[in-house]
């Protein structure tokens, strides 16, 4: 038993040692700022995860090439959680305790965000711009919590209202993915229609990864809808349009920002012509781009071997906001100082056509507005300004 007691003593000594050094700001040294990113590179939203990460890497590299932020190099530490909260929590703990990340940026996926956010906030680190439409990412107000993307509910309420007024639709319907994303959209569509005093005539769901939407479309057609709102992602958007056109149903459809992707018309071709969509950020088309955007697209393609998409722009923009805020904060970089600066800065539009992002001391949601777009001649055209 003596051996055991000695072991216990050694153990407690190690414990004491481990908790001793906590003097400086975590993740900020004379030479470096560490930023953590819990991504999904292998799970259901890996198609977003990869371009978002690449966009951020590109912006950080640019900042580093220009001498860093007040002489400090930016280092993005990426962990893949694959949309699994268990892996997310482990990744967040690793980033907090071992990498000493100064801030967490763009955590991917609602389950991962909900599971990791307490770990991040309890450790006193910044939790910036997660990819989750959950209200908890900015409400209740927390000094370290900032969100860039409104819940789908907000975008879709305005978009539905605008669409229905514009086209005077009487029988609006909804096709939704039966997860948190679909639920959010449903609430927004219902709220938007409610304000106009019109009902949601029919709604029908499908499971993520569903292969066949013919029974859902048949249901909607039987309800005689004149507008179908799609809470779908790219593949199901194309499948829904193709199925409707196949059975000769020329109904107008409006897809959320998740279906606003160049892939929608690349895959759908003629069948998706005329589809309406909600855009929060314009897609970076190389054709007809202004010279600065064209240069950016070229650099991205050279670096990563694929064309950038709207998610790459998103990642780049988020990293850009981080860099600009860190620069404006000055040499004494602490989470609190960073947060105070972020509350003051105004991020006006940029080369990409992003909306203006603005936070304040009592509102940590940067933007609530999307705009309408339509697929015309095989590409998305913006047809309204940001909807208020």
């Amino acid at each position, binding site marked *: 038993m003596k051996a055991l007691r000695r072991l216990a003593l050694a153990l407690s000594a*190690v414990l004491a040692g*481990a908790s001793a050094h906590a003097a400086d700001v975590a993740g900020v040294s004379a030479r470096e700022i560490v930023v953590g990113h819990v991504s999904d590179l*292998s799970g259901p939203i890996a198609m977003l995860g990869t371009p978002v990460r690449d966009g951020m890497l590109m912006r950080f590299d640019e900042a580093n090439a220009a001498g860093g932020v007040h002489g400090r190099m930016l280092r993005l530490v990426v962990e*893949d959680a694959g949309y*699994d909260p268990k892996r997310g929590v482990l990744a967040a703990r690793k980033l907090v305790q071992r990498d000493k990340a100064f801030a967490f940026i763009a955590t991917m996926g609602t389950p991962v965000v909900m599971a990791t956010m307490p770990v991040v906030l309890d450790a006193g680190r910044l939790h910036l711009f997660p990819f989750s439409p959950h209200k908890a990412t900015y409400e209740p107000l927390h000094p370290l919590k900032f969100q860039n993307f409104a819940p789908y509910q907000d975008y879709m309420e305005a978009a539905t209202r605008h669409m229905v007024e514009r086209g005077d639709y009487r029988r609006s319907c909804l096709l939704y993915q039966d997860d948190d994303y679909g639920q959010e959209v449903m609430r927004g569509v219902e709220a938007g229609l409610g304000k106009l005093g019109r009902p949601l005539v029919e709604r029908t769901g499908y499971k993520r990864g569903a292969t066949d939407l013919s029974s859902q479309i048949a249901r909607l057609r039987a309800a005689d809808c004149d507008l179908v709102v799609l809470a779908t992602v790219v593949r199901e958007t194309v499948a829904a349009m193709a199925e409707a056109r196949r059975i000769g149903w020329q109904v107008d459809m409006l897809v959320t920002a998740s279906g606003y992707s160049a892939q929608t018309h690349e895959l759908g071709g003629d069948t998706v012509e005329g589809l309406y969509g909600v855009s929060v950020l314009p897609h970076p088309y190389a054709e007809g781009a202004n010279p600065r955007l064209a240069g950016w697209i070229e650099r991205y393609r050279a670096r990563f071997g694929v064309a950038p998409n709207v998610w790459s722009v998103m990642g780049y923009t988020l990293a850009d906001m981080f860099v600009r805020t860190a620069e404006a904060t000055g040499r004494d970089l602490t989470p609190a100082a960073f947060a105070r600066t972020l509350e003051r800065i105004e991020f006006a539009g940029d080369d990409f056509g992003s909306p203006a992002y603005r936070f304040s001391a009592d509102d940590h949601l940067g933007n609530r507005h999307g705009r309408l777009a339509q697929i015309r001649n095989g590409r998305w055209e913006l047809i309204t300004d940001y909807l208020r």
Partner: protein
Amino acid sequence: MRRAAVLRPLLAWTLLLALAVASLGADFAFGQATLVVTYAIAGLGVVIIVGQAGQIVLGQGAFVALGAYAQALLVQAGVAPLPALPIAAAAGALGGALASLPAGRLGGLYFGMSTLAFALIVEELLVRWESLTHGAAGLVVPAFGLAGWTAGTPAAQAAISLAVLLAVLAVCARLLASRLGRAWRAVREDEAAAAACGIAPAAAKLRAFAVGGALSGLAGGLYAHWIGFISPEQFGLVFSFELLMLAFIGGTRRLAGAAWGALVVVAMPQLIAVLRDALPGDWARSAGLELMLFGAVVVGVVLLRPQGLADGSGR
């Protein structure tokens, strides 16, 4: 049991924990330890079903899910976490029994099929029964607490998990030495012979699934507190396969194997991440690399020690 048999693994585990604390930092190491221990409890369920009774289960994750949701809902309704745990275990037991029921007469691979189907149905139910489970939006679970004290630190969480694991191991050891344990092993070795000896194979198998489900349900109850947020998709097929791997690596015959298996299953993705970071240049960026390495490890383990499950189980 002899003292050495208890002392040696105890020393090994303590040493391992000390090493982890020293190299990874206390909070991180205890956080890891919590997860390893919780996985071990869930994996014990697989050890009972696969290793002791010789059946196949492909949907163990669903039993963990039932336990986790039962625990979360009870705590939300004002029940204290500790008394809620047995109910979480009961939910898992019920799931185990239900999942195995359709294949009861057929056994073998059919158990794999029915438990797989059961797991997929449970996942869909958790998504659809929104008024109860909040569907895909998930449930936030408060920290584990006891009479005013809450287990907020990783060390406390690890201690509680460990206490539960040790209790469960003791119960299981007694169970295996009992009539039921002998019946399981008899069914595993030769069903016809077991029946000839007056053992009812169908009943023995049903009980194995109920006990296996209960263990995983109990682990689910703890898991809900440790992760703090549960949603239907986190208990899917991959989780079920992780638990199978765990039992396979640890060896399905010995109960303590579950802990070693859990250590490997929890640590492996992180070791792979370390390995990935060590690779040069663009290789490290590749999303598929980790998946590929994990698959390679699975294949390697199965090929290197197929006798981990050999003679008698699952066939």
